[in-house]
């Protein structure tokens, strides 16, 4: 493998890491700050993708569809918290798991009833569908660069929000000691609703950006949920900075594992055996990484609570 290819693959890993971060950012706050087990976060990704694809289909304008879908995802999180989630905070974790697992089935079925089981058409406008040369002899899709850019902007935005604003101070206070924060006059109920809706919104943005890359179909968010849980565990519950670093690590490890591992195995194994073992081992890499982190630092790399 040449150096440019290796660099390109690391870049690919960065791109999938940025996408994972958008999903994990909200989830780590919901899990870490609110101490709430929320399994239906993948559904927020799906809602974002469907909102963008259908709005783009109706208006014929990709940019309008993508931008108009963002408030929809925020609103869906806000309404969901108001209708259901806030009633579950005082229940134990098993109840939360059951209820939010039910939500996964509910959202998938709603989408299937509303839009049918077939994947929606969602494609890029000509202005985004080309490619540019990021390295000599290495064309790269423009849209994936836009995804990286947008993801990094969101990451900086979340960082600023959490660390430099009053709302962020309240979120951090809540993460450290919720009872104390409430005693000091922070409206915990509203704060939770805001965190939840913001988390849904970031996951929705990931879905909006994923739409043109992958099939927009019912259940599209579930595979991402598991990876983003891995990210949260590695990064440390409730830590946005940890989630970002862990997401990039997971993205790069997963990508390189898929590409490099079969090559390494082939160098000393029979080809048919290597072809079988390579992809199987590659899909285990991130979980191995998670296990190692759990053994060495059980609270994750950057735990939010001291």
């Amino acid at each position: 493998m040449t150096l440019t290819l290796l660099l390109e693959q690391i870049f690919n890993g960065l791109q999938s890491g940025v996408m994972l971060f958008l999903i994990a950012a909200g989830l780590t706050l919901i899990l870490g700050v609110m101490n709430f087990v929320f399994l239906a976060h993948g559904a927020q990704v799906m809602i974002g993708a469907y909102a963008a694809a259908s709005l783009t289909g109706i208006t014929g304008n990709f940019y309008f569809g993508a931008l108009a879908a963002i408030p929809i995802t925020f609103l869906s999180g806000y309404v969901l918290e108001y209708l259901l989630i806030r009633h579950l905070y005082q229940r134990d974790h098993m109840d939360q798991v059951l209820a939010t697992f039910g939500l996964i089935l509910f959202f998938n079925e709603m989408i299937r009833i509303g839009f049918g089981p077939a994947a929606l058409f969602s494609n890029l406008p000509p202005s985004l569908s080309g490619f540019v040369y990021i390295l000599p002899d290495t064309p790269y899709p423009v849209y994936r660069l836009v995804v990286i850019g947008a993801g990094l902007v969101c990451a900086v935005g979340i960082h600023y929000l959490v660390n430099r604003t009053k709302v962020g101070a309240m979120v951090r206070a809540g993460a450290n000691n919720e009872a104390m924060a409430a005693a000091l006059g922070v409206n915990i109920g509203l704060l939770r609703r805001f965190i939840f809706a913001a988390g849904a919104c970031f996951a929705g943005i990931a879905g909006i950006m994923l739409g043109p890359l992958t099939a927009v179909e019912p259940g599209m968010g579930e595979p991402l949920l598991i990876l983003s849980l891995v990210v949260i565990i590695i990064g440390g519950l409730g830590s946005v900075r940890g989630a970002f670093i862990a997401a990039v690590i997971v993205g790069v490890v997963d990508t390189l594992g898929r590409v490099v591992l079969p090559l390494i195995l082939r160098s000393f194994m029979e080809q048919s055996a290597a072809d079988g073992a390579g992809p199987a081992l590659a899909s285990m890499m991130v979980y191995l990484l998670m296990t190692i982190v759990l053994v060495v630092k059980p609270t994750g790399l950057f735990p939010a609570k001291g």
Partner: protein
Amino acid sequence: MKRLLMAATISAAMVVGTASADTVKIGYMTTLSGGAGIIGKQMQNAVKLAMEHTGGKLGGVDAEVIFVDDQRKPDVAKQLANRLIKSDRVDVVAGVIWSNLLMAIHKQVTRSDTLLISSNAGPSPLAGGGCHKNFVSMSWQNDQTPEGMGKYMQDSGVSSVYLMAPNYQAGKDMLSGFKRHYTGEIVGEVYTKLGQTDFQAELSALRAAKPAATFVFQPGGMGINFVKQWNQGGMNDLSKLYTVFTVDAVSLPALKDTALGVIATQTWSPDLDNPMNQKFVADYKAKYGGYPSFYAAQAYDTMMAIDYAIGKAGSADTEAMRAVLAGGGIPTTRGILQMNSNQFPIQNVYLREVVLDSDGVATTKIIDTVFENHGDAYAKDCKF
């Protein structure tokens, strides 16, 4: 919820079953939920259409179809097959999209002396040494379709090719089938994860290998992802894309004209010129809107084969139906099908291209016939 519904359907079915003893019962297994749900939906549509065309009877006998959703999970498929055989006491278990699921239920169904008819999956072990007389395929053996593509690319002088398929039984069968007739240089052979959504890393590696052609097998939603990302990476300028089971009526509504010109081999196409196929395609479009996929055509053929078998055998006896089907001459949307000694069809393999029809809808059109009356490579190893 799903389980409750299923239990309710099945217990309702049992009531009907006891009411009239001479009803033929078909257990139809397919994937109705999850990302592959659209495939199962199309198959279910086609089965319903077939039952409409036969007036609700199979071979002149009142018939009932019990649909079960395998969720693309082998363990679920095993449980459902068990239930179909033991508590519903079906005469035939049919359907099954995925090779790994068919492998999982094959033994328990065939050994219970129930006829098992595949509407799609055709894994090589079941065509060769592991064959069983109670298993009949109404689709193809996995290798047959990619063999056609390998032969076509060999004949048209393609110098080097890069291969990509998901890491499961069918993926391996597809690539070994392809290599049986293609003797040019293979510059890369990559197995991706089943259900993979992002192929960017694989595409980067592919670009570095600079193959003249790329051959992929990525069924269902994976095909949508792959073709989208292939286009966005500008890969067409570098390598020509050849496919099997990747671009079809399931993925085309999501791809539309981005898939124009993609070449594939297939044993069926909506424009195949025979009366049964034309009636099937026209009625399917009228009833459900949009083109049927090959999955739907094979599901329809499965029901028509059962209809033919019961009609000719005079009963739904497993051995009698099997003997009729093994004898071939089955009317299907692919014409009159003859059967190989391992009870897999002997059939033509066509070259299809994605085109726009007169209404501007993306579909596939036959441009050549690669193999005529093509049997699979494993039949010689099959001894019942």
